[in-house]
């Protein structure tokens, strides 16, 4: 008595079924089933998970797919062999290409084209005439391999329907087969199916109505139960086993082949790689290859030979060589990237002598896993690398890996609330307050804090539902840069679907799936800082004659490191965030390796694992650095006995707990799934047991497990940190020695990084960089460098790209038509460049024409306004030496008032966020001084615990998740920035000022911690109304409360709305 379930959908039938493949197999095992077919609707996206689950449970997976054709015909198909699988993949790829992302459009003709090697079960609805017609079609095509499904629906007339279907099948000589149409593993999850039906159809549970699934009991049932339910259809039961026997194809039969690299004809891949490596070694070491490098290279090449990875390295090499030929800056990272082979091939710029990372640590003989190399490219030119890959390897052989986007706490909560019909406002409030690290779902207590009634039935339901929704996949999206390359047709290995972005295609499997099947993957990532560095190097060569690249940045340059220790790192890679800058004065990096640590330490993993403080204490010598055993010392010596990197964690487990590499890998996977299970589970017991066995104290073992759990999936690998540190060091070097070049480069690479252009410019200005305002005759789209007023220094000419809302095409026209002849006036420019009036107006508002033609904002606007869009050629021809037409002379002079200095500053701020003359606060300084408020610079220079009042404009608001509701504000005035800490309670009390103010008065005490100075707020007052006055102030030193000219003040009856028009629209970067 046996039965195989052939119609079972996993949650990869996006929003149509609710159980994970693992759960289904788990359940199948409990029910004593030998095999289970997964047939998701028009997809194979869950197949690898099912494959893994099948392995773990010992229940055999039968690969299937539920095809829903354009006319509604439903067919379950199962590949009988490799050929059938290839056909199925190509069929699905075809349907997806035709229908676009996330959809599939197939008709009967397509099935006919690709039916070879497939077995089909027709899924009927009512046993009527159309059903018979369809069944005939299926029978005609699939012949012996055609079946018809019989399922109970648990509605009236079930048995009559089965009888009729059976009769029909006999008549058409199609064998019947019993299926159960499974949508969830156990009966309790039925209600979740209602929920996802609503999510899919964007309706609420109350309006769902007819969309609710009609048929009950869609859970897995044991063979015995199925036999009980179908007593009269023994043959149909038996055939499930028969079909299962026929469909023996398994994913492990998929043989993945690296693309053949025919770079050097007549040579094997291994020979070619060797040839490339030795040639590269000569290039890297022109003075002669050191013996140590020769040894290392030999050793690595041997290992690559043994594992047969030569093709992989050749492929990466080919891609990188292309980037080099196009002069696209790149830097490899990832497990194998910091090897000697990669260095001599030019994949990475990390000199292997600078680190002692062992190659075996990443490519292990035991794991038999393909090596992993990611390459970061300039973000603005990565697309060209992509293009080249498509062209070289072909669209049938290359695609991007998918990312399965799943419900996370916030999305799950939001959708649960939406389904239950909560108003949008409530949803927003709750969702907004869920922070991303609430990975285990949120609790009703949270809702209570927000003033919601937690006894509300629906709210309780929402909390219950959102937990169940966690990790349910929603859709496939594309990985930021992971490529899969194959030698055979890729669309015969896995279905491919088009990405939302035109010209891109994505396979249905994600990175983990590919790991399982040992496909080769290469990440081509985009990094803003790479673009900035590339521009920086180009500018250096062009303007200063210095030729640099990533590999020849002076290592551990003292001046650069001194700057880093001062936390003067705005704009630098990775170490520029507020948290990093707070840490730098404490860690005091002096060596490259300390930068590596710095990059890795300010991350959720180490912070949650509570590794930061022990590390800092040990670094400062406040705590003794101890190691329980010498083995541990060898692993953790570099990081003062505190595990900070993922590799260290793995190594600890294998050394201390005696885990094999395979077991250690399990730990890695347990870490990744730790969020779901709420702990490392059984693995942690094994670790503790193993460590105690090896003579470690239980205390140390517990501590280690806790740290591993804290790591979660956020642990940062050392190999990545290395590559990031190289880039960080390079960006700091550039900022330190060539701040002018650095500023131009980074402004031209926007948007990127943490800071807005205005902040970068202010910072550069503080470092003595000369900033030159936009000019119609000198500026280009990008910021450019000009000879500075001091010899040897360059000035940065701001480029039009910084002006909001300007199209690059207009600027290009303006520059091309400018040529060698400068524009003489606005009408001249307008006539020659044909720049649209709207663009001119934006330029005028940015005060571009004052620099060029000495025409101030106000007059420029009038000039532009009068241009009109139709040229009158008659008046057009006569221009005087200033470029004004005679026509313009006829105009009576408007005699406009001069714009006040304050108003100019306001306009500057509103255009690009900083002022060409003075800081807006200058205008208010006298007022502030009279009230007894000191400047930011004075406050930051005050003694510890001094009580001060400081006013400043709010630049940054941050509320880091790990900081218990503490808000970090950065405020600035004309003297500099002040770093403010607002404790949660103060933040609540002075909510309006802390969250809403543009200009804020902070009263509190100064806290000095080494070189880090903070202002801890006791009170906060919103002074934004003062900003309104700036526009009316002329002389920055004007006396306060001066009864200004009534005209300028707009008379006594100014409506608040009016005044606000002139206010500074100062945008802070809030809560990123």
């Amino acid at each position, binding site marked *: 008595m046996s039965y195989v379930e052939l119609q079972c959908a996993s949650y990869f039938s996006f929003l149509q079924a609710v159980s994970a493949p693992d759960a289904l197999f788990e359940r199948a095992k409990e029910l004593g089933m030998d095999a289970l077919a997964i047939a998701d609707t028009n997809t194979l996206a869950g197949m690898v998970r099912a494959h893994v689950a099948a392995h773990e449970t010992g229940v055999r997976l039968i690969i299937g797919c539920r095809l829903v054709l354009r006319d509604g015909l439903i067919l379950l198909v199962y590949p009988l062999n490799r050929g059938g699988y290839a056909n199925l993949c190509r069929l699905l790829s075809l349907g997806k290409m035709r229908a676009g992302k996330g959809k599939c459009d197939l008709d009967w003709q397509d099935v006919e084209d690709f039916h070879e090697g497939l077995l089909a079960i027709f899924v009927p609805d009512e046993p009527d005439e159309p059903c018979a017609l369809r069944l005939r079609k299926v029978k005609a095509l699939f012949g012996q391999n055609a079946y018809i499904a019989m399922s109970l629906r648990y509605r*009236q007339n079930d048995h009559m329907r089965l009888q009729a279907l059976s009769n029909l099948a006999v008549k058409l000589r199609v064998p019947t087969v019993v299926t159960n149409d499974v949508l969830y593993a156990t009966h309790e999850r039925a209600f979740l199916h209602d929920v996802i039906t609503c999510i899919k159809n964007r309706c609420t549970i109350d309006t769902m109505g007819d969309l609710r699934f009609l048929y009950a009991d869609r859970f897995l049932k044991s063979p015995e139960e199925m036999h009980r339910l179908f007593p009269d259809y023994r043959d149909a039961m038996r055939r499930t086993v028969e079909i299962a026997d026929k469909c023996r194809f398994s994913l492990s039969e998929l043989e993945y082949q690296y693309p053949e690299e025919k770079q050097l004809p007549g040579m094997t891949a291994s020979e070619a790689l060797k040839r490339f490596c030795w040639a590269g070694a000569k290039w890297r070491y022109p003075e002669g290859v050191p013996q140590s490098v020769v040894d290392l290279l030999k050793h690595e090449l041997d290992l690559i030979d043994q594992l047969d990875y030569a093709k992989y390295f050749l492929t990466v090499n080919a891609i990188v060589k292309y980037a080099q030929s196009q002069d696209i800056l790149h830097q490899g990272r990832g497990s194998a990237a910091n090897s000697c082979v990669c260095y001599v091939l030019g994949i990475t710029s990390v000199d292997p002598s600078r680190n002692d990372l062992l190659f075996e640590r990443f490519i292990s003989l035991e794991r038999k896993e393909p090596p992993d190399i990611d390459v970061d490219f300039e973000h603005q030119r990565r697309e060209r690398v992509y293009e080249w890959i498509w062209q070289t390897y072909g669209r049938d052989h290359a695609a991007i890996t998918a990312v399965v986007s799943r419900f996370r706490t916030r999305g799950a909560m939001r959708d649960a609330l939406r389904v239950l019909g909560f108003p949008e406002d409530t949803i927003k409030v709750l969702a907004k307050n869920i922070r991303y690290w609430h990975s285990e779902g949120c609790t009703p207590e949270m809702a209570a804090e927000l003033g919601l009634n937690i006894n509300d039935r629906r709210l309780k339901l929402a909390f219950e539902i959102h937990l169940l929704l966690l990790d349910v996949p929603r859709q496939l999206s594309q990985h930021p840069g992971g490529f899969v390359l194959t030698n055979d047709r890729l669309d015969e290995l896995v279905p491919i679907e088009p990405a939302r972005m035109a010209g891109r295609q994505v396979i249905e499997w994600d990175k983990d799936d590919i790991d399982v099947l040992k496909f080769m993957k290469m990440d081509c990532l985009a990094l803003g800082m790479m673009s900035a560095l590339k521009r920086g190097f180009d500018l250096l060569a062009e303007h200063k004659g210095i030729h640099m690249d990533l590999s020849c940045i002076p290592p551990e340059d003292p001046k650069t490191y001194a700057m880093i220790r001062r936390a003067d790192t705005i704009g630098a890679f990775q170490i520029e965030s507020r948290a990093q800058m707070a840490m730098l004065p404490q860690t005091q990096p002096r060596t490259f390796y300390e930068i590596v640590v710095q990059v890795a330490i300010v991350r959720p993993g180490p912070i949650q694992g509570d590794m930061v403080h022990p590390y800092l204490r040990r670094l400062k010598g406040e705590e003794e650095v101890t190691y329980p055993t010498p083995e541990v010392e060898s692993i953790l010596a570099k990081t003062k006995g505190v595990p900070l990197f993922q590799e260290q964690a793995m190594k600890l487990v294998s050394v201390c707990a005696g885990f094999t590499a395979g077991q250690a890998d399990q730990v890695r996977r347990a870490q990744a799934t730790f969020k779901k299970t709420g702990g490392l589970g059984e693995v942690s017991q094994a670790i503790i047991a193993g460590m105690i066995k090896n003579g470690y104290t239980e205390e140390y073992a517990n501590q280690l497990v806790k740290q591993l759990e804290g790591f979660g999936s956020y642990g940062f690998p050392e190999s990545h940190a290395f590559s990031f540190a190289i880039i960080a060091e390079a960006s700091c070097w550039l900022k330190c020695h060539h701040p002018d070049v650095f500023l131009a480069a980074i402004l031209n690479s926007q948007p990127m990084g943490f800071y807005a252009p205005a902040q970068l410019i202010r910072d550069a200005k503080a470092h003595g960089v000369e900033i030159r305002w936009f000019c119609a005759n000198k500026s280009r789209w990008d910021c450019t460098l000009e000879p500075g007023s001091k010899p040897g220094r360059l000035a940065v000419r701001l480029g039009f790209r910084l002006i909001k809302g300007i199209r690059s095409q207009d600027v290009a026209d303006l520059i091309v038509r400018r040529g060698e002849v400068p524009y003489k006036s606005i009408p001249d420019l307008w006539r020659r460049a044909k720049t649209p009036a709207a663009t001119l107006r934006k330029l005028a508002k940015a005060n571009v024409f004052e620099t060029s033609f000495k025409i101030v904002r106000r007059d420029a*606007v009038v000039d532009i306004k009068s241009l009109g869009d139709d040229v009158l050629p008659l008046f057009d021809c006569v221009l005087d030496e200033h470029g004004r037409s005679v026509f313009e002379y006829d105009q009576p002079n408007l005699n406009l008032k001069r714009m006040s200095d304050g108003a100019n500053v306001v306009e500057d701020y509103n255009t690009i966020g900083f002022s060409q003359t003075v800081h807006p606060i200058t205008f208010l300084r006298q007022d502030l001084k009279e009230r007894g408020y000191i400047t930011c610079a004075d406050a930051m220079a005050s003694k510890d615990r001094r009580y001060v009042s400081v006013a400043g404009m709010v630049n940054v608001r941050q509320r880091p998740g790990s900081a218990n509701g503490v808000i970090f504000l950065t405020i600035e005035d004309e003297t500099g920035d002040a770093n403010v800490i607002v404790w949660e309670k103060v933040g609540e009390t002075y909510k309006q000022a802390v969250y809403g103010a543009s200009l804020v008065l902070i009263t509190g005490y100064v806290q000095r911690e080494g070189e880090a100075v903070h202002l801890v707020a006791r009170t906060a007052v919103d002074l934004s109304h003062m900003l309104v006055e700036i526009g009316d102030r002329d002389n920055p030193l004007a006396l306060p409360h001066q009864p200004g000219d009534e005209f300028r003040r707009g008379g006594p009856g100014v409506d608040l709305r009016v005044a606000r028009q002139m206010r500074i629209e100062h945008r802070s970067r809030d809560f990123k």
Partner: protein
Amino acid sequence: MRRAMGSGAPSRDVPLALKGSDGRRRIITAADDLARQMGVYIGMPVAKAESIYSDLVILDADPMADAMALEKLAIWALRLYSPLVAADPPDGLVLDIQGAAHLYGGEAGLIEDVRRRLADLSISSMVALADTWGAAHALARFGRQVVQIVDSGKAGEALRHLPVEALRLPPEMVPDLRLLGLDTIGELAGKPRPPLTKSFGPKLFRRIDQAFGRLNEPIEPVEAPELIRIERVLAEPIGAPETIQKYTRRLTDRICLRLEEAGLGSRRLDLHFMRTDNRIETIFVATAKPVRDARRLAKLLVDKIETVDPGYGIDKMVMTAAFTEPLAMKQTLASFEAPARPDVEDLWDVLANRHGSDCLYRAVSVATDIPERAVRRVPPTSEEVGSKRNALYRRPQRLYRKPEEIKALAVLPDHPPRAFTWRGQRYAVACADGPERIRGEWWVTDREKGKVRDYFILEVESGERFWAFRTGDGQHADTGGLKWYLHGKFE
């Protein structure tokens, strides 16, 4: 002057703001005094307001309703003060009170009266009186005083200090003027015209001229909707029902003619009887759809005459079509095959006017699996067709008000009972269909969460068919307690 009306509004001591969108962002479009005192301003992003002021109530703005309310207010002012009144959207009214003020003891008196009456309607107001619409508009909104009266010829002086926004310019023009430093009307008016006109177009100075009274700007007054109203003065007071009926019919005939001229149909027809003792008796008929069939309306009215107490006699009858809707002539379709659908509207109206409209309903099926919820009442006029979800399945005509518990003998897990006992009588089951498994609607009540009912159609030996169910699926204890109920009987 903002809408503060509407029942169910938040109480007055709660700050209230309205939100709308300006295309890209959601912003505050209006705030009451309390909210403004807190610092909420118009144009503030909603998200910001929400995060800062937790006790602020923010509701959706409804510009359409605001405009309609303003229009209504204009009609109100039209009746009270002056024949020349117009709405000045979004938030004002403009009145030409030339020759109207003396009724209220002068201009100040009239303004006082306006403000008092508006205050009674919970509308706070700012009033300005000036020579021109433009000047009054500007002063009412941008002047500092709540009431401002500008003497004739002084408008220019009063406007000088007001910001340029007060000129009713297109909104995109204002920032440009301000950029040029032209903040006030006075500054703008003093500038040479040709260059500014070239830059900004003719509208700019036209607005100035209108405000200063150099250019005429007529007010297009709102028109009060005319009610169709006819009356009949009776030479001799009448009292006999037959006489009242006779006149009622005549009035109805006349009013229907008037309705036809206007292309309208009546939804509510009022009939007032003025009694000789100065008391008024009223009857009315309301119809589901617009009607101007005199016979039908008269019949409906006549039905109600018995409620009229004529007292010592009625000397005047007034009939008003209080609520009308357009009703165009329509050709009845003479169908070739099926006869036209019988027109039952007449019947609805008779029944509704006699027994109240609550008594009339039609049933449609609801998209639910729970039999007790599967039917819903809708008004007879509703076009709803209902759900087809249960159309395929047989259901008894009537369900028992409450499922009646029965004693049944059945094999678990999902077999129909062999026999059951209902109301003391035992029935042996001859044949059955089932189970039809119905899942509870867990979102309606907690009791239904995860629960199922297995329904069976049971045919007993006498040939009667019952609809019975068992709670639970017979396998999982959490789905129900395995009790049997009879829920209906197939007739």
